[in-house]
């Protein structure tokens, strides 16, 4: 460490060069954290067991580091992350709600965490019952009777949903080629459509931010297999004409798919099934609180109507009454029921993945539902919507909406979209600059530049677990950044300043990708 480096510290830069080493750069030949258990069996020459032709010449060049330095390395790395347990994280569409600590304890219980996925169902009754009860609760919440927990995340649930639509139509002797998605749809929707072998047809949005009913009517032809809809939409708006939309879609024999990413707005208030949706996916890692893990894991269970049920993925978790007759859905009344995996589903689309899905995720979401109950879940949605509208009101009160107007001036649901267009014109700072400047204030920026149809979009989702004080503080921070930009836009354009690194060269990274350590 040179004198310069140290005087640099007087100015408060916290970047210790040492913090930027990778674990490979901390490696020294001969160091180790792992000690192998004693070889308690005959030490036959390896060549006799695996001939040299089958073997690699050199082992993988993994790091050589003792436990203390591995711990420090990843501990230091962790401090270069912003996290939900430290500050406000209003990342729109992602429902960054608090993750109850209880859930981690429960998921770690050996009976859950150390259960082998191929354990015989008779010896996994606790796990199967938990899954069955979760299915039951999700069916009630969505208003659709049949649930598969198998999909690994929302987009995986979407894929399952579109494949179910295909199977349904084929089974009815139809082959359709198109799937409708609103122009506000999340990217996974069109990507899913293509992956499932359909053509995407975009449906427009009207002046109020709702699905353009006329455009929908025009595009809802009899070669349309499905409409994928998010309601509330990614604009944070509830479709008031949802009944009409359902009528149109069903009118041409298409299925209506519900992207459940925004379910957090309506739990216990209304149900997709009652709106006429045939298929719903849940993002358990959003509405039903999973730690987001830096990008997973999650789970994307789906709920479907009777007519879609025969095609659900294999296997299904079922409850068999003592008599032995298979039974799924329904309440938990019977005596000593037995839970099982049903593979005998001739019309099933088959498997989407291995084993029974992300069980560890199910444990957490089931615990959440048990903790809150019906009243609690409704309180969640009410508070999520209250917080969003309150934050919007505070921003208006502070004059922020003059520069960052709401994309649609309506009561919002659990999130809302602002447009940075006026700010860009008047203050010469972009939504990106605002976002980066927020980092210096210790809050995570909202989702930016999505939905695409809003100019310089800022999608704000506070969630129900934030306090009024936090919302007030955020509103004041945004106002402060705008005031600062009015005085000197360069500050925001140069932001952030206090983060572990500042703006990064993303273009360069993509031009000459360095995606692994040179060893």
């Amino acid at each position, binding site marked *: 460490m040179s004198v310069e480096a140290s005087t640099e510290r007087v100015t408060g830069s916290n970047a210790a060069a040492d913090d930027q080493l990778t674990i*490979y750069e901390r490696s020294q030949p001969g160091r180790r954290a792992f000690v192998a258990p004693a070889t308690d069996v005959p030490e036959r020459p390896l060549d006799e067991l695996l001939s040299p032709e089958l073997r690699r010449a050199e082992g993988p060049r993994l790091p050589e580091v003792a436990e203390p330095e591995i711990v420090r390395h990843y501990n230091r790395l962790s401090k270069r*992350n912003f996290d939900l347990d430290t500050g406000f994280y209003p990342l729109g569409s992602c429902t960054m709600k608090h993750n109850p600590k209880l859930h981690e304890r429960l998921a770690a219980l050996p009976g859950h965490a150390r259960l082998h996925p191929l354990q015989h169902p008779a010896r996994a009754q606790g796990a199967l019952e938990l899954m069955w009860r979760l299915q039951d609760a999700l069916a009630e919440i969505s208003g659709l009777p049949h649930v598969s927990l198998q999909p690994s995340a929302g987009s995986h649930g979407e894929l399952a949903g579109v494949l179910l639509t295909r199977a349904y139509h084929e089974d009815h002797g139809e082959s359709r080629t198109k799937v409708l998605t609103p122009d506000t749809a999340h990217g996974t929707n069109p990507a899913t459509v293509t992956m499932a072998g359909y053509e995407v047809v975009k449906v427009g949005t009207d002046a109020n931010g709702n699905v353009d009913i006329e455009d929908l009517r025009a595009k809802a032809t009899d070669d349309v297999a499905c409409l994928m809809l998010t309601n509330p939409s990614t604009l944070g708006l509830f479709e008031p004409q949802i009944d009409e939309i359902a009528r149109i879609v069903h009118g041409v024999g298409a299925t209506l798919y519900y992207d459940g990413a925004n379910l957090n707005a309506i739990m216990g208030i209304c149900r997709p099934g009652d709106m006429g949706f045939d298929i719903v996916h849940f993002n358990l890692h959003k509405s039903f609180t999973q730690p987001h893990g830096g990008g997973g*894991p999650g789970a994307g269970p789906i709920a479907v109507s009777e007519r879609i049920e025969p095609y659900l993925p294999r296997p299904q978790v079922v409850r068999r009454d003592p008599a032995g007759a298979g039974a799924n859905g329904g309440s938990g009344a019977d005596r000593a029921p037995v839970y099982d995996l049903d593979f005998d589903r001739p019309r099933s689309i088959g498997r989407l993945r291995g084993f029974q899905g992300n069980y560890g995720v199910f444990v957490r979401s089931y615990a959440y539902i048990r903790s809150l109950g019906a009243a609690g879940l409704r309180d969640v949605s009410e508070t999520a919507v209250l917080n969003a509208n309150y934050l919007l009101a505070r921003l208006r009160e502070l004059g922020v909406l003059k520069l960052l107007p709401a994309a649609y001036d309506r009561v919002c649901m659990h999130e809302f979209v602002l447009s940075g267009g006026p700010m860009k014109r008047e203050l010469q700072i972009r939504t990106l600059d605002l976002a980066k400047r927020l980092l210096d204030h210790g809050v995570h920026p909202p989702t930016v530049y999505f939905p695409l149809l809003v100019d310089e979009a800022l999608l704000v989702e506070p969630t129900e677990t934030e306090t009024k004080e936090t919302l007030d503080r955020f509103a004041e921070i945004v106002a402060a950044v705008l005031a600062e930009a009015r005085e000197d836009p360069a500050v925001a354009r140069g932001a952030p300043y206090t983060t572990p690194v500042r703006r990064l060269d993303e273009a360069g990274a993509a031009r000459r990708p360095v995606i692994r350590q040179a060893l």
Partner: protein
Amino acid sequence: MTRYTSATDADRAEMLAAIGVSSIEELFADVPVSLRLRDGLSLDEGLSEQEVHAELRALAERNVSCDDEISFLGAGMYDHYVPALVDSIISRSEFLTPYTPYQPEVSQGGLQAMFEYQTAICELTGLPVSNASVYEGPSAVAAAGYIAKHTNGRRRFVVSRGVHPHAREALATLARAWEMEVVEAPLEDGLTALPELDDTVSAVVVAQPNFLGAVEDLAALAGAAHDAGALCIAACDPLPLALLRTPGECGVDIAVGEGQTLGNRLDYGGPSFGFFATTEALIRRIPGRIAGETVDVDGRRGFVLTLQTREQHIRREKATSNICTAQALNALAGVIYLSWLGRRGIVELAELLVRRTDYARRTLTALDGVDAIHEQPVVREFAVALDAPVDAVIARCLAAGINPGYPLAGEGYENGLLIALTEQRTREHIDRLAEVLGEAVAAERDADRSHAGVSG
């Protein structure tokens, strides 16, 4: 108000006033009255933390976990020891609670970990490109198939029976939507026997080691695929790769696999992660997140999500995959685990597996009525055929506190049993298995005979 929300009645009143409405109801004005739930959801009432803990603990107690029996179950997930430092690191809120690193300036920890993970996967597979994780093993095979479909637009997948049945099924599920055909290649004496490959073959899909535990001649299989102008996709068990010729060296185009064994729990099948590695040629078709190294405006080293033009949030219907949320935390556990094993440790561990497996295989096949299904070299798992009804034999072993493995009837080996080893199954456990299995087979054979006697 719940214990996770903070809006007191006083707060609500103030907030509603600020909004300018008189009730929460008004905020839901857009919801058609006909759709509003009148009596709320019919779910049980909420419980205190302690009650929820008691209930889920009771459910856990009704599962027989690897803590409760000596288990030789494998067949895709394996009971390896997860070092304590993995749990202690991944449970730090800074890794546990953020989402995908959309704001790299405050996500360097997660991004650098992805970069380190990608490097480790490249080292394991011998391929130059790895993404930051996909969901898990079987769906990774399907995702690899999607690349093949786009790369050469051909009509058929040739899939070895040595590929995990769940992976074969996951690929078939999508192939149907792609109007592609799946042709299965049989195993002969434990190894994949490829059919004639013609120019309709998009990809040849194999496993290393395969489902019966046998080490395949990956180079030969990849060669055959390439001769037909097809891609070679290999589903690999990562720990054996510490010893085996790498997929990259063998000419495999896409190596995928189940990452559970790398520092992740069994969790009754998930969450774990899938790894996905490929060649430079396919870099712009790979699904999912990729972290790349770059510099900031001050010239400081940093990491970002890169090559995003592949992804759904940019390319939408033209994306190479629809994946968004993946398995970042599980992949983090993976790279921490691999760093814990280290360059020497991973080889020592793999060699221990080979020796314990060899010992188990010799000991068990020496038993009366227990025969090898194949004689191929194995690393951590092997298949035997029992001269007795496998389910009855398993039942007897379970009664003795031993779970002897996975029955292979579903794979067409009527009384076949797939037996997996990990460093947690000691010689003592193996000897006990031999004792119990031997007795069980003997007992069931007699039972069979007498039964035959009766019925005959």
